[in-house]
């Protein structure tokens, strides 16, 4: 017999060796004695407790609604500010403020989210589900920042701040921390009990698997999902209130806890509350260990912040491989037609003509400027928007066609820009761009590697974690981007006789170069869509199981599209650098990359033209500001823009480009096919909706017998709960 070594064991050993190496290399020299150990444990457990509450809430929401809520921590942050307003500002007693925050505001947000948005997302594509919650996250951040200006410092007092706390060995555990740990334990136990031992909780879990089955419990599915969201918001708020006194009331920090919570949720495989709790503890302890014992040095000054992301990656390595599921196919409500080459060429031409006419002042422009001249500022802005467009278009094959939701492309572009500054950029050498693309292709692949065999959500988590690591650790490393280096990093580059640089005199040429490149990429993507590569990616996205059974190697197919997208992002990064002229270490935060994906998704992530529409959308706000002065309603719209986008996506999941394109095509006299397909589609939609209503009403309209309930209980494995005498024929979520 062959000796079988489990690959997991090997990975575990490798990971352990790396961790050991990092620990010994960065050992800070603090002696390991009772004092340091107890301070490491006290801080770690308290921190872990807070993470555990956040992660627990995240897992509960996911387990009961099927939606991974990226806005979880942002909602928690908003609630923490609400709590601050009530206690510190209004002077309400702590308990009253907590009650108002957690028992009134939080559930209200939850029910509202469910009613307006979340309920529509149950059958939506993963990218739509994720982008809607990302939109919410940005909205909650925006609202919080507006109501409570970050210019004013705020502090939230700890609980029982005046009391001394408890002496544990040589360290004092403050009451706040003790309370945190106790609450975390109670929350974990409570959630576990709720989900597995009460009828409401069981109904909540059942809704995810089968709405009709859940209907049989007699509970109204809409109330159940509302309750799930309310519960999620309450845990988010609780965690926010507990952590804000430790970290300070800072929107970014409190919102970034989502990365930590995601890592803990990955450890919990998105379903186990006890494991989410343990995951939170592990991360808390790891961070505390690092701060007590390790000294990362100036080169890796921010390595500390990468710990949760690193733990997420490690957790992904050990997750069991996802099964290829069948019967979960999403019914497409889409009609589209392959773009013909001449149509794509026409589209590309229109893009070039539009931007060209604008850049050369052939179309009327707003007050103050005349025909003929565009200010250098506006030409620079235009180039900036086109660069963003290049990043967005790199996402089309990856997210739109292959269905691989990635948040990392902005970070890849950032790394590309930094690399270009080292290789070619400083000498104005165009060949460096090719080099950067060749590096960024495998980079895109490497990010995806740990998640390739897992389901799509993990990929999204991994890419988000990578974006955070790239910003905090990779780009900030002095060998990558020296924070002390100022001035020009990118010399003008000459490509095909066009000088492109950030210099004001070159800006028009640069903008034209960018729009031509963009239009070319657009055309190439439209052509690519007609090849077997794109067909295979779309097939894989529509049904992985069916793809595998016709011989598609899913792993290599995914790798292909990640490399393409990575290379495109790398190119965009080079352009980013050239357009800026210089880079700062703060150029590529996670929160700057997310809106791009959202903007593209709202326009329609499957259609290359959506990236161009995204550019126009980006440009429209500064343009409107200039036309209208600075009306406050416009900034309000800009602020809640992501929220509007999120709602729009929930109702129009295919994106604006699709719906307007379909209706426009229907108006063209020679597009009979568009009208016919629309008819077919509407008929099909109606047919499907009839069935849907029936299922929705099942629990309401169909009376059922006690033995039906008993059967259901058996299916759900809750026989120990069943009390024959108490059984009410109509069930109920009580």
């Amino acid at each position: 017999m062959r000796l079988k070594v489990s690959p997991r064991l090997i990975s575990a050993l490798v990971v352990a060796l790396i961790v050991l190496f990092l620990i010994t290399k960065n050992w800070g020299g603090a002696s390991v004695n009772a004092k340091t150990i107890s301070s490491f444990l006290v801080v770690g457990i308290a921190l872990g407790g807070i993470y555990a509450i956040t992660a627990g809430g995240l897992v509960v929401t996911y387990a009961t609604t099927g939606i991974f809520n990226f806005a979880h921590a942002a909602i928690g942050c908003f609630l923490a500010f609400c709590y601050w307003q009530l206690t510190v500002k209004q002077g309400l007693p702590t308990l009253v403020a907590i009650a108002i925050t957690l028992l009134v505001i939080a559930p209200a947000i939850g029910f509202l989210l469910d009613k307006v948005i979340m309920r529509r997302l149950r059958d939506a594509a993963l990218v739509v589900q994720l982008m809607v919650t990302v939109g919410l996250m940005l909205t909650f951040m925006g609202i919080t920042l507006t109501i409570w200006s970050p210019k004013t410092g705020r502090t939230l007092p700890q609980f029982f701040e005046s009391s001394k706390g408890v002496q544990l060995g040589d360290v004092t555990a403050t009451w706040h921390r003790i309370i945190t740990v106790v609450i975390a334990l109670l929350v974990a136990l409570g959630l576990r009990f709720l989900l597995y031992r009460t009828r409401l909780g069981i109904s909540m879990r059942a809704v995810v698997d089968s709405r009709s089955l859940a209907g049989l419990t007699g509970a109204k599915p809409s109330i159940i999902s509302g309750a799930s969201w309310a519960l999620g918001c309450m845990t988010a708020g609780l965690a926010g209130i507990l952590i804000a006194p430790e970290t300070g009331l800072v929107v970014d920090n409190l919102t970034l806890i989502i990365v930590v919570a995601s890592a803990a949720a990955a450890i919990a495989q998105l379903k186990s509350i006890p494991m989410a709790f343990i995951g939170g503890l592990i991360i808390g302890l790891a961070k505390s260990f690092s701060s007590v014992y390790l000294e990362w040095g100036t080169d890796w000054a921010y390595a500390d912040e990468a710990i949760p992301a690193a733990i997420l990656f490690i957790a992904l390595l050990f997750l069991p491989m996802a099964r290829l599921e069948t019967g979960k196919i999403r019914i497409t409500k889409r009609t589209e037609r392959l773009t013909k080459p001449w149509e794509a060429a026409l589209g590309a031409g229109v893009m070039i003509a539009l931007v060209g006419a604008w850049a050369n002042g052939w179309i009327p422009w707003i007050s103050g400027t005349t025909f003929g001249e565009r200010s250098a500022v506006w030409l620079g802005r235009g180039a900036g928007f086109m660069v963003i467009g290049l990043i967005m278009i790199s996402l089309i094959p990856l997210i739109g066609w292959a269905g691989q939701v990635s948040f990392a492309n902005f970070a890849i572009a950032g790394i590309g820009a930094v690399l270009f500054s080292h290789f070619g950029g400083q000498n104005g050498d165009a060949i460096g761009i090719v080099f950067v693309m060749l590096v960024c292709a495998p980079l895109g692949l490497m990010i995806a590697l740990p998640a390739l065999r897992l389901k799509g959500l993990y990929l999204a988590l991994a890419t988000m974690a990578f974006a955070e690591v790239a910003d905090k650790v990779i780009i900030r490393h002095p060998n990558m981007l020296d924070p002390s280096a100022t001035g020009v990093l990118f010399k003008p580059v000459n490509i095909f006789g066009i000088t492109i640089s950030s210099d004001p005199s070159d800006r028009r040429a640069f903008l034209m170069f960018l729009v031509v490149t963009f239009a070319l990429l657009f055309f190439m993507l439209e052509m690519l869509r007609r090849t077997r590569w794109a067909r295979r990616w779309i097939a894989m996205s529509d049904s992985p199981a069916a793809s595998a059974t016709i011989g598609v190697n899913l792993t290599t197919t995914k790798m292909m599209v990640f490399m393409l997208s990575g290379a495109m992002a790398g190119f965009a990064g080079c352009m980013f650098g050239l357009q800026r002229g210089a880079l700062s270490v703060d150029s590529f935060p996670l929160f700057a990359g997310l809106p791009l994906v959202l903007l593209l998704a709202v326009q329609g992530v499957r259609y290359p033209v959506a990236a161009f529409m995204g550019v126009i959308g980006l440009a429209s706000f500064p343009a409107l500001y200039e036309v209208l002065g600075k009306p406050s309603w416009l900034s309000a719209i800009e602020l809640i823009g992501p929220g509007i986008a999120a709602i729009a996506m929930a109702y129009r999941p295919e994106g604006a480009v699709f719906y307007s394109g379909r209706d426009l095509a229907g108006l063209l006299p020679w597009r009979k096919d568009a009208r016919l397909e629309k008819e077919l589609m509407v008929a099909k939609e109606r047919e499907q909706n009839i069935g849907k209503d029936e299922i929705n009403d099942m629990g309401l309209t169909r009376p059922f017998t006690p033995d039906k309930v008993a059967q259901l209980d058996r299916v759900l494995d809750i026989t120990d709960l069943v009390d024959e005498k108490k059984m009410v024929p109509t069930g109920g979520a009580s």
Partner: protein
Amino acid sequence: MSAILETRDVVVRFGVLNAVSHASIEVVEGRVTGLIGPNGAGKTTCFNVITGLQEPTSGKVFFEGKDITNKNPYKRARMGIARTFQKLEVFGSLSARENILVAAEQRKTWDRSGFDPNKVCDEMLAKVGLTDVSEFMVGTLPTGTARLVELARALASNPRVLLLDEPSSGLNEEETEEMASLLRKFVDDGLAVLLVEHDMSFVMGTCEYIHVLDFGTIIATGTPAEVQANAQVQAAYLGTETVEEAS
């Protein structure tokens, strides 16, 4: 006749539930083999084991005498196993033509006979009678038509064995008859077909050999006549009414 595809003592356990226990199924070239049984008997799970979507708890799957139990789904497809699904697994955002084209192009990776995928695609479209709707997105097509797209897609990879999971569901009577005659044509061309089906008259009319599953166990095998006469089968599943209907 030796079996081209065979499962030996396949067991699939979900928690405490044995979805399939010690199921041995043989599929022979040039005939339609039926796999029937009441709801939840484990038929689709058997299909998933054969195509590699479900790892069996124990037992083995053989294809042309080779053990393929640990092979990836895509490798099995490349060896010549194709299937359709009980619940549609079409590529909804590709046109009917593209659905089939993906499979035909994929076949290029292992079939070096120098065929033209576009031609294969046209042939398949004609074979199942979809030429008229070939440019429509499959997501907008009615279920019956989409089922034919799935069938054509499976055929486009030029399989040796075709597994059909309830091909007649969603089809009307006329379409079902067409499907039956299509199947006969495939089998005459030397294809081996394994069929899961609820429509008893369809099964009894099309299959030459039948395996009956009940609670994951094979309770009877034989010709349609033998299976119908089997008392255990009648008790477990068929019932007198269905038998009458079929005979």
